[in-house]
């Protein structure tokens, strides 16, 4: 069971001189490790998160964000074969491979991919712990028998990963940190004995520790290039010079110190299906079943003190594809009554193409929500912070998402671009917003209208607005304020040079 690759001796006395760093404080170091950690390191994760495996036939590279040089952080295998290396400037990389496909790295996509990989690793063991940004750890000691040994497990995992087009380097070691080191060093090793670790130190470059560059540089000045050199340093001086955290890290790697890891927990979801006693042809007859499903959902959410940001309702038909409804909420909610109200509004506006045989209700991720105090005196209304979100949901459920919006000013001279539609309830503006010297109208027309009713109109102005020649939406206008006989103040303009007619753009209200 406890096997080692022949690449290294099973028992390797790395301690040659009585250095403080290496005198084992514990006599323990039992030969068979209590835990075995599988580390999967994904050296090309930034690019693989951007391009699916099928597109890897072309050389591609991901560049760093917020970097004027646009340094390459990761490239796919084809690009690597053509000489692209992480750390190159973009100009150098393009000179080398002119057809290089370049993408800016997306940290969010990398996080999502790592999350998927952690979920994938759950097939080997229930104890999985992602190590951002680019590795996943799994405790596999208990699973080795099932999968036929450490080597077989690694082969199986590698086959699965390369099948989805991911380049990975795997390693097994008695401590999570040592497994990470081995995986990052791409040694392809399975170490199952605790006392085998120090013997490997000479083959682990400092880079696999991922320590700060200045630390690695300082160690380089001492002539230390690998872990073996590091372990020869005296403990006390090492801790004094480089900090106790790094010493702790080394101890954790060598199994002298326990390093607890956070377990990856797969988010729970609600997925329930209810067959109707008889087919329902109208939305109103779906209500009782919907109510029961939502009551289940409400109990599920209350038990977990969670809310959902939205849900999906599938109406299943006998022969047709299901009718799918999606409901998004402005604020995570667990209120079954409110959800039923919103879904009923949606159902009432969704014609049923065929009788419905069953309902299926699914949620996305659950979000923790703070339970709200039921207020006896203020009766919810004004003091209720959820009222704003609930109103937004109700209006959108009936009127459609686009019919309800917010507005937001934009610092821009062109009047039609000085505002934009925004999600209501965004961040408050940095007050005070600078007032424009000539006042702006409170009402804006969606499109400027031709203006030709000049009866009794008095005009003052102009205010000249010339802007936007650089982005193709050139504006060269003279704006005037016009008083109509009815007492309405209008904002009108004329294009410059004064060839075109007059247009009405706003009303002062």
């Amino acid at each position, binding site marked *: 069971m406890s096997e080692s690759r022949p690449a290294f001796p099973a028992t390797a006395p790395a301690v040659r001189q009585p250095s403080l760093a290496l005198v084992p404080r514990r006599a323990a170091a039992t030969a068979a490790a209590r835990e075995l950690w599988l580390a999967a390191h994904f050296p090309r994760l930034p690019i693989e998160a951007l391009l699916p495996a099928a597109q890897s036939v072309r050389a591609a590279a991901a560049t760093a964000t917020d970097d004027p040089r646009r340094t390459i952080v990761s490239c796919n295998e084809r690009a690597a074969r053509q000489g692209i290396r992480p750390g190159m400037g973009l100009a150098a990389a393009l000179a080398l491979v002119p057809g290089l496909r370049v993408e800016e790295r997306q940290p969010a996509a990398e996080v999502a991919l790592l999350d998927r990989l952690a979920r994938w690793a759950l097939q080997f063991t229930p104890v999985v712990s992602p190590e951002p940004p680019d590795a996943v750890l799994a405790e596999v000691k208990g699973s080795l028998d099932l999968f036929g040994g450490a080597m077989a497990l690694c082969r199986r995992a590698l086959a699965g990963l390369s099948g989805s087009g991911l380049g990975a380097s795997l390693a097994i070691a008695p401590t999570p940190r040592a497994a990470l080191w081995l995986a990052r060093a791409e040694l392809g090793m399975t170490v199952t004995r605790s006392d085998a670790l120090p013997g490997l130190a000479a083959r682990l470059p400092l880079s696999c520790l991922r320590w700060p560059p200045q630390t690695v540089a300082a160690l380089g000045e001492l002539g230390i290039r690998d872990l073996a050199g590091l372990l020869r340093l005296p403990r006390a001086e090492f801790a004094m010079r480089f900090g106790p955290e790094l010493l702790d890290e080394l101890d954790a790697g060598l199994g002298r110190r326990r390093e607890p890891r956070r377990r990856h927990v797969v988010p729970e979801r609600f997925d329930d299906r209810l067959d109707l006693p008889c087919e329902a042809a109208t939305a109103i007859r779906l209500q009782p079943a919907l109510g029961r499903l939502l009551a289940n959902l409400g109990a599920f959410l209350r038990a977990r003190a969670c809310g959902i940001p939205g849900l999906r309702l599938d109406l299943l038909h006998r022969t047709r594809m299901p009718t799918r409804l999606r409901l998004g909420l402005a604020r995570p909610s667990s209120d079954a009554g409110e959800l039923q109200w919103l879904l009923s509004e949606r159902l009432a506006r969704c014609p049923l193409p065929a009788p419905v045989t069953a309902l299926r209700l699914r949620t996305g991720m659950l979000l923790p929500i703070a339970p709200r105090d039921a207020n006896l005196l203020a009766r*919810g*209304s*004004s*003091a*209720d*912070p959820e*009222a*704003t979100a*609930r*109103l*937004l949901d*109700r*209006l959108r459920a*009936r*009127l459609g998402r686009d*019919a*309800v*919006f*917010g*507005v*937001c*000013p*934009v610092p821009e001279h062109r009047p039609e671009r*000085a*505002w*934009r539609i*925004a999600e*209501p*309830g*965004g*961040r*408050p*503006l940095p*007050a*005070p*917003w*600078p*007032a*424009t010297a000539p*006042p*702006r*109208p*409170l*009402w*804006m*027309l*969606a499109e400027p209208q031709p203006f030709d009713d000049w009866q009794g109109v*008095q005009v003052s102005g102009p205010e000249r607005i010339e802007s936007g020649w650089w982005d193709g939406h050139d504006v060269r206008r003279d704006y005037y304020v016009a*008083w109509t006989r*009815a*007492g*309405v*103040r*209008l904002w009108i303009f004329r294009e410059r040079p004064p060839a075109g007619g007059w247009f009405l753009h*706003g*009303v*002062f*209200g």
Partner: protein
Amino acid sequence: MTDPLAALLRHPRLWRGGSVTPGPATVPTGFRRLDERLPGGGWPLSALTEILVPAAGVGEIRLLLPALCTLAADRPEAPRWIAWLAPPHLPYAPALAAAGLDSSRMLVVRPRAGFDVLWAMEQALGSGACAAVLGWAEAAGDTVLRRLALAAEEGQSPGFLFRPPRHRDESSPAALRLSLSAHADGLDVEILKCRGGMPARVTRLVRP
């Protein structure tokens, strides 16, 4: 001599019958001459106000703007919406921001059907989520207006319903009814009906 008495009268445990102010809770309109004419000295909170406007843009928003700023700044810990339901044009964010209204609290609703406006207004008023609800509607029967008035009371939100002046002679359950007429040098506000007050006329109010 009066100081001990004043101190005694200020004592929180002393309650005097005369200090109960009758009349509705209000928010000042920002126009002194109009405040003097309105019971409670301002726009009624938790009630429906109906404003008859001859044409969009005569100055109805400038009339409300000071009160809207007060209402929007109220309760910064639990901010509420200023809802614009079916406005005739788009509220222009830079002008609102320059006037001091935080545009992140604006909620613009543009329903397709006319009846949806009144439905949305009832929802907005009754939800308690709005510091003010501004609605533009053509036809609104007595029943619908009564529902709006009740919703405003329930949600403790002031509602402002803008309608054309041809509805002037219809009965209305609104707590306050105004008719606006514009002139080159200001806005005339005629108070048609006012719960707890007298009809009146305030001339040349919002000067451009």
